[in-house]
C-alpha cells in the first residue's frame, strides 16, 4: 500500500484525522478516543505487524505519543501521533496488539508519567524505586541535587 492509499483509508476510518505528508512516511494525528479502535484495524486489516518505535514528546503545552508502525508483509510504514493532556496523560495500551509495547510503555510511563490504561504490568522499567511521580524527561523536571542547569 502506498502513502496515498493509506491516506484515503485513514480519512475514511477517522474523518477528523490530520495528516503530515511532508516526510517519507505518512504521519497521522488522531484523538485519544479514535486511537485504540484505529490501532486494532491497522493491525488486522492493514497487516501492520511490527511496532518498531514507541515514544513520547513533551511540547510543554501537551504531550505527544508517537507510534512508528511497519508491515513486514506489505512493506508500508505509518506514524501515528496522539496528543495527550500534560496534567492527566492517559491512553489505552497497545501491548496486547504489539507485545514489544509492554516495555516501551513502561519506559514512557517512568520518563513522562503517561498512564497506559489496561497495561498488565505498569511499573518502573529502569529507574530505581521511588521515582514514581517524578518524570525526568518532562521539560519542567527539576533535580537541584544532581542537575547543573545551563
Amino acid at each position, binding site marked *: 500500500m502506498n502513502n496515498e492509499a493509506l491516506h484515503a483509508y485513514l480519512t475514511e476510518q477517522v474523518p477528523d484525522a490530520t495528516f503530515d505528508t511532508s516526510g517519507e512516511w505518512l504521519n497521522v494525528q488522531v484523538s485519544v478516543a479514535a486511537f485504540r479502535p484505529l490501532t486494532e484495524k491497522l493491525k488486522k486489516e492493514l497487516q501492520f505487524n511490527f511496532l518498531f518505535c514507541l515514544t513520547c514528546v513533551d511540547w510543554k503545552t501537551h504531550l505527544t505519543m508517537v507510534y512508528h508502525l511497519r508491515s513486514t508483509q506489505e512493506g508500508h510504514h505509518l506514524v501515528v501521533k496522539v496528543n495527550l493532556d500534560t496534567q492527566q496523560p492517559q491512553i489505552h495500551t497497545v501491548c496486547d496488539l504489539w507485545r514489544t509495547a509492554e516495555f516501551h510503555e513502561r519506559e514512557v510511563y517512568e520518563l513522562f508519567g503517561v498512564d497506559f490504561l489496561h497495561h498488565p504490568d505498569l511499573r518502573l522499567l529502569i529507574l*530505581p524505586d521511588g521515582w514514581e511521580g517524578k518524570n*525526568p524527561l518532562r521539560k519542567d523536571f527539576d533535580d537541584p541535587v544532581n*542537575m*547543573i542547569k*545551563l
Partner: protein
Amino acid sequence: MFCLQPISSSAAKQAGFPGEVHETPGGGVVLSKLDDLINWARSNSLWPLTFATSCCGIEMMAVASAKYDFSRFGFEVARASPRQADVIIIAGTIVNKMAPVLKRLYDQMADPKYVIAMGACAISGGPFFYNTYSVIKGADHIIPVDVYIAGCPPRPEALLHALITLQEKIKKGYTREQIRQGSNS
C-alpha cells in the same frame, strides 16, 4: 640488593630494566633494588578489567584489536573478573545507578590496583555535564583515578599513551598515599 647473571648492559638498557650493569669478563652483574624490580615486572603485566559503559568502550576495544594492540605494552588479557584484574579503564559514562557497581568492582580488585579515566564522561560527565539527572560528574567522585585521558572519545593512540603513562607511574614506585603525603609536606 639483588643479583642476576649473566646479562649484557645494552640488553638491560633496552628492556628498561632498573639497575646498573657491572661488566665482568664472561658476562656482567646487575645490581638493583627488589622494589624496583617488582615495580618493573608489575608495570609490564597489567591486566585490564573488561569494563565499558558506552561509546568510549568501542575505542577501547579497537586498542585491544590487532591494529593498535595494547598487548605489545603488557596489557595482555582483558579479564572478565575483577579479582584477576590490575587496572580498570573507565571507558564511558557513569550514571548514578552504575556508580555503586563500579565501586564494588573496584573494591573486589586485588591490590595493587590502578584506574584510568578514559574520555570526557569519565573525567567530568563530559557532554552530559549540564541538565541531566542521571550522570555522575566524573568517575573520581566514586573511585580514585590514576591517569586521565581527554577526548570524546580519545584516539586509540591517546589510550596507548595513557597506558604507558601509567607504567611510568608504577615504575616510579610511589603509591597514591605516598604521592599525597609528598604534596602535603
